[in-house]
């Protein structure tokens, strides 16, 4: 069973639909025992960092996540869910994240030329740094994935698995031990994304 954390952030239709399409049992939940009993955890998220962090804190699930991550259970953060895995975010202020991945979330517009659009919306090519990562089991260099975001991960070289170029190198896939994150939406990235979700559900730690 895969537990998708329900904390009132974002539209889970495609994520639950894509897992169902892959034949993977998943439950959308904010129940601590259900999360403890799951084989793996997905942390989704769309919207603003501070608001999402507060909503996650309000569920009381952060200690459960900390414990499960420490126990080695695979966790995948998607989009804002990935950003929350980092130590800090500088989205409208300074906010602490869950701290599973070393690095910071910073505004894209400060690092790219003015004539480039923010949010970074659309299909971009993945450049693979660590082909051996289990999440990329079915992914090839140059595969396209779908991004929608205005902030991005920085200072996370140690955890960088794959990135896309948008003047700067935007971390697309990050991983530290049993914690994985994708800045793009695998559930919106066609076959490439479905295969990545499949790979995550096959991860054993």
């Amino acid at each position: 069973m895969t537990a998708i954390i329900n904390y009132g952030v974002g539209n889970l239709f495609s994520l639950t639909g894509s897992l169902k399409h892959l034949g993977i049992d998943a439950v959308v939940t904010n129940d601590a025992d259900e999360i403890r009993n799951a084989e793996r955890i997905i942390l989704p998220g769309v919207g603003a960092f501070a608001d999402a962090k507060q909503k996650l804190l309000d569920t009381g699930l952060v200690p459960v996540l900390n414990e499960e991550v420490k126990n080695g259970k695979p966790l995948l953060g998607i989009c804002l869910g990935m950003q929350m895995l980092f130590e800090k975010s500088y989205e409208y202020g300074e906010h602490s994240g869950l701290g599973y991945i070393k690095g910071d979330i910073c505004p894209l517009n400060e690092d790219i030329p003015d004539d480039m659009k923010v949010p970074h919306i659309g299909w971009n090519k993945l450049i693979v740094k660590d082909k051996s990562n289990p999440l990329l089991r079915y992914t090839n260099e140059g595969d396209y994935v779908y991004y929608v975001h205005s902030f991005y991960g920085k200072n996370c070289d140690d955890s960088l698995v794959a990135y896309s170029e948008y003047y700067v190198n935007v971390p697309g896939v990050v991983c530290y031990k049993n914690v994985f994150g994708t800045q793009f939406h695998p559930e919106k990235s066609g076959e490439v994304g479905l295969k990545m979700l499949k790979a995550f559900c096959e991860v054993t730690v």
Partner: protein
Amino acid sequence: MITKRIIPCLDIRNGRVVKGVNFEGIQDVEDPVVLAKHYNDSGADELVFYDITASFEGRGLFADVLKDVASNIFIPLTVGGNINSLDDFDRVLKSGADKVSVNTGAIKNPLLIRDAAQKYGDQCVVLSMDVKRVDGRFMIFAKGGRENTGIDAVEWAKKCTSYGAGEIVVNSINTDGVKNGFDIEMLQAICDVVSVPVIASGGAGSMEHFKTLFNTVPGVDAGLAASIFHFGEIKINDLKKYLISQNIEMRI
């Protein structure tokens, strides 16, 4: 870098695709799920569904269609038509839409854009506008292009993006259905004043038109079309291969 996008648009009435006829290799071209799968397999980067149903029952059918498509196809889905309130946003988002396109609803109440952007995020709100030249100015038209609202299109684009519209679909009434190319001048005028992605609609008749669009107006992110794709006059995978050969980045 980010690719340019090719987006087929499907008009849905009473749960069936309108205009969907004469499509090579497809048995039931009026079935939105069949057609959506076909486009997904041919490399469409995103799908747009417009609900042109008038009746309440038809709207229920549309929600069912949307759920069915969104459970089978995992690329971005934009939904428009009959979007006049936050409840309408909620209705289509719960049925699997990723982005919601507002047109007349925003003309009636521009604050709908602000309220929706605050609730669902800018990335979720697409402004769709029907634009036509009147005395050398670009004007916003309503009611399927029949009524001049008196709103200046360039000002409208600025206003709606300041309220939080995260993308703009510019449909040129002047070039729509003419198949003589996109409305380069109009698109340039809009791209000059906004910093969100712009989707060009109206006028595509050949693969060269897409090349001219992307090369002449670099601010345009995507080309949208309906009948040329539905009738198989242009196949999306052929179009993408052609554009790549012209050094335009595409996802294949």
